[in-house]
């Protein structure tokens, strides 16, 4: 890794699953040394769900783990054992950031709560990511992805009005917990430059998402309207939707009059410009079904690729509904060299999504995810000065 923005920042990542690990991955991507601390012999829970090459389970080959832990070092340590917690407190002395996502109270019962750790190292930034935060009536409630979608207001607004509300695209709530944790950690590191002091960051996934749906809150607080499900349509104009085409689906988003007039002309029906059914946004919403009956046959004769380019060139916002196969062959992502090909000793060479943003002076960097305990010797012997015999002893006691 080259010298870059977070060089010299040492992160202890004791989190599991998605939220905390994504935070750690982002810190590693910009140069921090991230030491992932895993449970002896089993490791992070994300080593189990896969996806696996050829669908054959293997703890070193889970796609979820491989993606969320790029650029980290792995050591094993049992935190729920007095000796392990003692070793951890020793490592914390030289750490800048600690990322954890245990349910509230777990760190405390291991004697590793923020007040204890900040006594050991007042510069420590501790980033705690949980479903509902460290306080409040739900703080001990259980949550998985679909529960987060529900309690943050996303489930209610997605899907068909006549059907059950729909969850989003996979574990986005957990990803958001990690992304917000990353953002706040950087703020805390920036603040530490002035104060010399770390702090405790309480990231509630519910709160990350509760202001994350366009205008849903202001619609109510300004207009008294509760946003309802609207399928794929948009409530202030039409056509803004997803449509079938010859080989899949496309998004068409003609939300301004010039775009709509372009679209009417493009599909060979310029007379619609004068059609009283489509003159105003209210007219277009009221007659959305009638318009779609005219539009869809035209779309169905064309491929998503063809439609994307034609409509875009006509300045009508449009996009293919892309699946992973489309994305990986898409010339735009290729031209921008977005994809990262990462070689892993067990899982082979795999394509990962690349940087979320490009920084001219401090670019994103990527290296493969670690094997379980791969860096035990480097960290325990090389850095902490444990002898081979000490290490063997700890291993026997199930500490590492």
């Amino acid at each position, binding site marked *: 890794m080259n010298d870059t923005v977070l060089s010299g920042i040492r992160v202890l990542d004791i989190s599991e699953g998605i939220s905390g690990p994504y935070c750690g991955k982002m810190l590693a991507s910009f140069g921090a040394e991230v030491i992932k601390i895993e449970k002896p012999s089993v490791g992070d829970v994300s080593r189990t*769900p896969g*996806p*696996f090459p*050829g669908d054959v389970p293997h703890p070193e080959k889970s*796609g979820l783990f491989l*993606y969320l832990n790029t650029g980290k070092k792995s050591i094993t340590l049992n935190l729920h054992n007095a000796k392990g917690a003692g070793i951890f407190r020793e490592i914390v002395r030289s750490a800048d950031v600690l990322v954890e996502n245990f349910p509230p109270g777990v760190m405390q019962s291991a004697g590793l709560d923020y007040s204890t750790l900040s006594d050991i190292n007042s510069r420590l930034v501790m980033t705690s990511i949980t479903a509902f935060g460290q306080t*409040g*009536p*739900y703080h001990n*409630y*259980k*949550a*998985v992805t*679909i*529960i987060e979608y*529900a309690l943050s207001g996303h*489930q209610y607004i997605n*899907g068909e009005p006549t059907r059950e509300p*729909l969850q989003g*695209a996979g574990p*986005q709530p957990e990803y958001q917990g990690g*992304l917000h944790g990353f*953002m706040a950690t950087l703020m805390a590191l*920036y*603040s530490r*430059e002035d*104060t010399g002091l770390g702090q*405790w*960051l*309480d990231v509630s996934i*519910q709160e990350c998402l*509760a202001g994350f*749906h*366009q*205008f*849903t*809150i202001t619609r109510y607080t*300004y*207009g008294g*309207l509760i946003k309802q499900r609207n399928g*794929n349509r948009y409530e202030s104009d039409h056509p803004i939707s997803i449509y079938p085409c010859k080989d899949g689906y496309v998004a068409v988003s003609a939300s301004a*009059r010039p775009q709509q007039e372009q679209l009417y002309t493009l599909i060979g029906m310029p007379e619609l410009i004068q059609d009283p059914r489509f003159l105003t946004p209210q007219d277009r919403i009221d007659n959305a079904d009638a318009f779609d009956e005219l539009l869809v046959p035209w779309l169905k004769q064309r491929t998503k690729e063809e439609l994307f380019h034609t409509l875009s060139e006509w300045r009508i916002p449009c996009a*293919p509904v*892309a*699946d*992973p*196969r489309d994305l990986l062959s898409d010339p735009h*992502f290729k*031209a*921008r060299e977005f994809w990262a090909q990462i070689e892993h000793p067990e*899982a082979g060479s795999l*394509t*990962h*999504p690349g940087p*979320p*943003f*490009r*920084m*001219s*002076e401090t670019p994103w960097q990527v290296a493969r995810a670690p094997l379980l305990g791969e860096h035990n010797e480097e960290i325990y012997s090389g850095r902490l000065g444990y002898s081979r015999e000490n290490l063997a002893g700890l291993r026997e006691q199930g500490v590492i």
Partner: protein
Amino acid sequence: MTIDFNMTEKAVLDGVRVLDLSRVWSGPMAVRMLADMGAEVILIDAPQARVTTPEYLQMVKQFRAAGRHYPYFPDGDPGDEPWNRQGSYNDFNRNKLGITLNLAVEEGRELFKRLVKVSDVVVENFTPRVMKNFGLDYTVLKEINPAIIMISLPGYGMNGPYRDYPAYGTTLEQHAGFSSVMGYPDSGPYRTQSTYVDPVASVNATSAVMLALLYRRHTGKGQYIDLAQVEAGVTLLGEVILDYSMNGRVPQRLGNRHTFMAPHGCYRCRGDDVWVTIAVGTDEEWHAFCDAMGNPLWTEETKFADQLGRWHHQDELDRLVQAWTVLHGHYEVMHILQAAGVAAGAVLNAKELLADPQLKERAYFIEQDSPSVGKRPYPGFPVKLSRTPPVYRRPAPRVDEHTDFVFGGLLGLTKEEIADLMERRIIGNRPPVTQA
């Protein structure tokens, strides 16, 4: 040139000045998070400039006449200064200072350059040709201020074949791959009603600026950041991309189901459009779930005895679960199940979110009072920081509220010069009709 900044509380980004040229949502929300951390943000030109067009106001009237009043204004009423009254404008621009500046004319651009000289960060989310056409791209700005940090967050990024294509939140989440995995098992793809890629870009953009500020603090160097919203989106589909890379698999749409948990779904409750989500994983959770429902006879059927059995009989299981949930309120089901150790969550709508006991106790929503729109709640900063909490110094400004402070105080123009600029509509008391 005094101004009450209510600066008694120290904040993380005190002393950092940001020029906000961004529009609509992704950029404004990113910059709001910097402002909540104390940055002095100068909002140029009011992102919602399009509310000034006669067509837009006409549309609002039509919506009101149709009885579906367009809810972006207090009680649907745009008033005499709609640009100061729009809900999203007031939501996304708290803690910012407002000026208008016509960048379409040379003199406006010169004033912008003078602001760049005394600022730290520039944020914009136009399509790539706009800043270049203004002659205000990074290569120009860094000549004026080598330490400037500039971030652009267009839909497709600053290069590549789709660079100049029009792109909205309502097209980018489909292109980024989210829609392909969202939908009912028997339906086509769905988009989110939250246009998810916009706020994803926001949090990434704020993080990128924080990284650049840290780097500058150590080196004195500025830099340029290119954030393609579509790419920021794809980074949140890691396991889906890896599955394709490993197995060539294009994912199925699962609706509300899960790859191994069952029951796992969204169930109707008592009332009109009232729902709860429930997720049962382990056998232990299943037994707790059955106890909480009062162990109806069907729970003893052998086909539901283990996780695989439950997963294979989900259609039937979902009907049976719903026969129980429909007798109760959504919060009621949630509390009963959570007390038993089973994951459940009420499906909250906007009104319920504002009243949710958890969000309330943690003071998630903050209240702000403004002369333009009165006292209203807004989502606060999304993370709790123990030592450096966010600061809420001021509600969103009137679009021209800080004309004197910025042009007089920061740039040292005289009252006469400001009046002259106003006269010639280079600056003004309302945003110019959309220029980009």
